[in-house]
């Protein structure tokens, strides 16, 4: 079996006749941890919607697991940025994870084997994100970090081979963002699941990444972090002078893009 999870050639996508980005080329293999970085509104979520088969490209070629993207591909686990869960959602977390395993089915469980499979998958998913003790906790009473772990478990319950995580670090403080990145990195290693993580700031991720997909200014740059995140490559991408500065601990600051990252490091 080919290890290629997803690949794109000269991919172009438009939304309501407005070009989002074009000429995207990338190749994601099994067990790779990939960050999708770029300013707000650059089209990071659009890339996910494309891979999920929710929208179609206007030009170019894209494949997921060797076939055109299709809606409802069970090999993909997806954690969107926005959720319907709020403080009034007094539903225990384990129920949502359970639905991640079997929520797409029409009929209720009938045989004991069905109940067992569901319970095992749910317990395993919760354990793998270290949220076993949160199983009975109400979704509405959870902190942002706890919720992200539950959403991750919900996606993992379906045993995906490709994980799409949309801004899981948004609204987490630096320490919790770091914890979540460690957790995701551990999952990528232990499950050999290819993971695309949309983020605004590269720094919490940079030590673990295999690849970076940088989207800005209607263009997409792909490659190893040290190839993409350079003054030259980002200047070319943005089309205006951009400088990448490094601090003593390996953090970097991108100055001069439409959306300076300097604030994100603070």
């Amino acid at each position: 079996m080919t290890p290629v999870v997803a690949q794109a050639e000269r991919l172009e996508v438009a939304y309501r006749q407005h070009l989002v980005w074009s000429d995207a080329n990338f190749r994601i293999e099994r067990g790779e941890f990939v960050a999708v970085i770029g300013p707000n509104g650059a089209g990071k979520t659009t890339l996910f919607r494309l891979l999920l088969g929710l929208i179609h490209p206007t030009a170019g070629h894209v494949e997921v697991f060797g076939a055109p993207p299709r809606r409802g591909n069970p090999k993909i686990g997806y954690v969107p940025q926005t959720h319907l869960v709020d403080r009034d959602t007094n539903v225990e977390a384990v129920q949502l994870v359970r639905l991640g395993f079997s929520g797409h089915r029409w009929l209720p469980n009938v045989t004991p084997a069905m109940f067992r499979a569901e319970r095992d998958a749910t317990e395993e998913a919760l354990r793998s994100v270290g949220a076993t003790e949160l199983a009975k906790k109400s979704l509405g009473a959870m902190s942002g970090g706890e919720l992200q772990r539950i959403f991750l478990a919900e996606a993992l319950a379906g045993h995906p081979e490709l994980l799409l995580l949309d801004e899981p670090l948004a609204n987490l403080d630096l320490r919790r963002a770091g914890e979540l990145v460690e957790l995701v990195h551990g999952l990528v290693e232990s499950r050999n699941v290819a993971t695309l993580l949309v983020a605004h700031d590269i720094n919490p991720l940079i030590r673990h990444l295999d690849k970076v997909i940088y989207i800005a200014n209607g263009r997409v740059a792909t490659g190893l972090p040290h190839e993409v995140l350079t003054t030259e490559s980002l200047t070319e991408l943005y089309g205006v002078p951009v400088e990448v500065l490094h601090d003593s601990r390996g953090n970097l600051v991108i100055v001069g893009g439409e959306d300076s990252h300097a604030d994100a490091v603070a």
Partner: protein
Amino acid sequence: MTNITWTWWSWNLIGDLRGMLQYEFVRNAFEAGTIIAVLAGIVSYLVVLRRSSFASHALGHIGFSGAAGAVLFAVNPFYGLLVATTVSGSGIALLGQKASHRDVEIGTILAFSLALGLLFLAFYNGYATEAYSILFGEIVGISNAEVTLTLESSIPILIVLGLVYRQLLFASLDEEVADAKGMHTLLLGWIFMMALAVAISIAVTIIGVLLIFALTVTPAAIAIRLAKRPLYAVILAVLIALFATWAGIFIGFYEVEPTSFFIVTIVFAIYVVVRSIPLMVRLKNWTAATVRRAPIPERARPAAPSVDSVPPALRTEGPSAASVEADAS
């Protein structure tokens, strides 16, 4: 009902009930009330989960014009209700789940349809009594045929709900993921709206369009505070609706006041009690907390997330996750 106030309920409730059930209209009321409470209880959980309570309220009012129109053309008001609620319910469902939050649009249509209902009733001579029973319910006037109609319209909906329950639950809790999984969230939303439309149409016969909230929203609003498992919450909502309906009919048999008043009052009383539980707990903890707060140094305090660490979707006025149980009204 007003002509049987000579009796008074005794301590022997079973005996009272037995005597009461000798009247056909009471039997009919209990039968219809039971069917309605079961369906309304189940649907109400989804209403609360999907935050469609205003849509539910609106469907009842839009149903009023349908019922009034039916009365004008000498058709059973139930059919008028069913047509009006299913048509408008389909409209709301097609706009998607987020549409149920469009209070302004729904409210505008609601007001217009109430005005239409008023016009229909103005054309009709039997104005007062018909309008009154549609607005406030008339459970003692339920005929055998109407009980059958209630049952016949509920059973298909209950079967469909049973089959799609899990998908509906998933789509209500996490629509975007459900959508990405290839589920037909729009169709599921429509099925939910149809279930709501039927529940409202049959519930109007018992408590009327103005009081519909008490059976299609409040039972689950109570249950969701007490049960974190959807199945338990649904069962609890059904039990609350059943209890209120049965007790309301029972008391209504002896009292001159309308039965729907008692049903709504019982639901309301349970709601008030359940809502005040976290308030009591908070009051109790408050005294303990003021004592405990001082000695804990800044760094050792348990991880109460700051407002910024909570996703925007979760942010309410309350600054910390700890105050969740204590509600936002």
